[in-house]
């Protein structure tokens, strides 16, 4: 019984889609384009975040060691640093290495540094942190803790830079969420109202169905099926179009000498986002049909 009804309603929905082909194509097109805008936005803001993340990962923390610390104590300091769970990698920078990199930074003054009687620079450990531990507060606490290790003279990191970065990141994030929310709402509004227009164009059909004694459910179900199919088709088309242009763009971008691509791979939408688009498309189609019908089902 239930299977027979399911078959019946599916057949009806397919029949409807074929009979109102133009209307359905337009609806699917609009759903698809709305979702393309939404998901290309998602994709790009994800890439941007990844990009900013790699930047962040590069923030080094320098732990300067007291002048003339014996080697075994230096090793002990290294061990203690390693014990912090925030720490990903530690590398030792001898005073010679330090002056060499300073010379690299000021190549014009290479001779000046070379002529120094005494190396003024201390030895240090350069620390790379794990992802997610680069916020200004976390860094401040970590620096304080590191400074308390015996044998450590001073801890330094690009404080200004990390704070500037953080605010920039927040800014980009806020912007992304704002646009994202606008786009999501716009998509829902546009899709549901597009469906409303198609239902408007078919209001006589609904009226006639009511006149032959069809229950609201009987009228509604094929429309809901249709909405789901439209939403699903729209989402699938959107994902296909996105994937196609992603392959094209990714191929092209790799050949451009943009710096970021050395660090970040532009990646396609992760699986869960793809599913989100699919389910979102179906849900909007379904709910759009549901609400669009309300108005016409209420009249006797």
């Amino acid at each position, binding site marked *: 019984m239930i299977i*027979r009804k399911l078959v019946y309603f599916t057949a009806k929905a397919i029949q409807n889609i074929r009979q*109102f082909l133009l209307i359905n194509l337009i609806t699917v097109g609009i759903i698809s384009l709305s979702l393309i805008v939404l998901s290309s936005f998602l994709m790009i803001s994800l890439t941007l975040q990844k990009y900013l993340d790699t930047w962040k990962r590069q923030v080094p923390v320098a732990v300067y060691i007291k002048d003339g610390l014996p080697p075994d104590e230096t090793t002990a300091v290294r061990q203690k640093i390693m014990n912090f769970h925030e720490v990903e990698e530690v590398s030792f920078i001898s005073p010679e290495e330090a002056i060499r990199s300073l010379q690299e930074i000021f190549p014009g003054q290479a001779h000046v540094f070379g002529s120094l009687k005494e190396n003024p620079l201390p030895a240090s450990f350069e620390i790379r942190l794990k992802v997610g531990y680069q916020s200004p507060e976390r860094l401040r606490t970590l620096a304080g803790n590191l400074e308390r290790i015996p044998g450590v003279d001073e801890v330094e990191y690009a404080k200004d830079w990390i704070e500037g970065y953080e605010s920039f990141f927040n800014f980009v994030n806020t912007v992304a969420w704002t646009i994202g929310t606008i786009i999501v709402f716009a998509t829902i509004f546009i899709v549901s109202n597009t469906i409303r227009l198609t239902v408007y164009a078919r209001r*006589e059909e609904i009226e006639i*169905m009511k*006149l032959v004694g069809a229950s609201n459910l009987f009228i509604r179900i094929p429309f809901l099926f249709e909405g789901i199919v439209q939403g699903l088709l729209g989402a699938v088309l959107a994902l296909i179009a996105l994937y196609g242009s992603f392959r094209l763009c990714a191929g092209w971008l790799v050949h451009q000498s943009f710096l970021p691509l050395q660090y970040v791979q532009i990646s396609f939408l992760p699986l869960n986002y793809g599913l989100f688009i699919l389910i979102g498309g179906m849900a909007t189609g379904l709910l759009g049909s549901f609400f669009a019908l309300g108005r016409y089902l209420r009249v006797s």
Partner: protein
Amino acid sequence: MIQMFHVYKIYPPNYRAVADANLKIDKGEFVFVIGPSGAGKTTLLKLIFGAEPPTKGQIIVDGINTVRAKTSTIPLLRRRVGFVFQDFKLLNHRSVYDNVALALEVLGLKKKLIRKRVLQVLKQVGLLNRINAIPPALSGGEQQRVAIARAIVNDPILLLADEPTGNLDADITKEIMKLFKVINSWGTTVVIATHNKNLLSYHPTKLIVLKKGSVQGVFVSSHKNSGSFVPQNVQ
């Protein structure tokens, strides 16, 4: 079968389509509603069908008070009532077959059963050759016959036919009226609204005369198939 008590239908802003109608139609009757254009025939039929709510008064159809009934019972009533609309109300994107089948699909019948019954009725109205056409590709008379087929396909207990032969020639009119008579003889109450006085030769059991929304008189056949009427007092 049908009872109306002081029924008014006043269309906005203030147009009296039906005023103080009191009627009683028994099960198995064959009734004509006649009156000039704009008299309120269609409105009266729509009131019985629950397609328009009355402004005032009570209507009882097959034991159901359509004014007070829950909205979910109206569809149930309609599945047992056939209506031939004056403007046909066919689905323009569906074939003749689908249009007629619709009235059975809402009953949830099996596909095979539906097919058998639909073909049978389409044969009765002489449309077997146009079965796959869509209504816009039919002549006026053909559309009207599709509407008739849809109204009778589910063996209704009550058939409301609004000007069912307005687009049909004399021969087909005769066929259709015979069909209505047959259906009536099987127990279906038939109410036909028409301006065509020629149809009176088909021996109604009751004749309701409308004019400007008022029931001018209800005439009841003195004995079956006599064709002569005597005034009747409705309660």
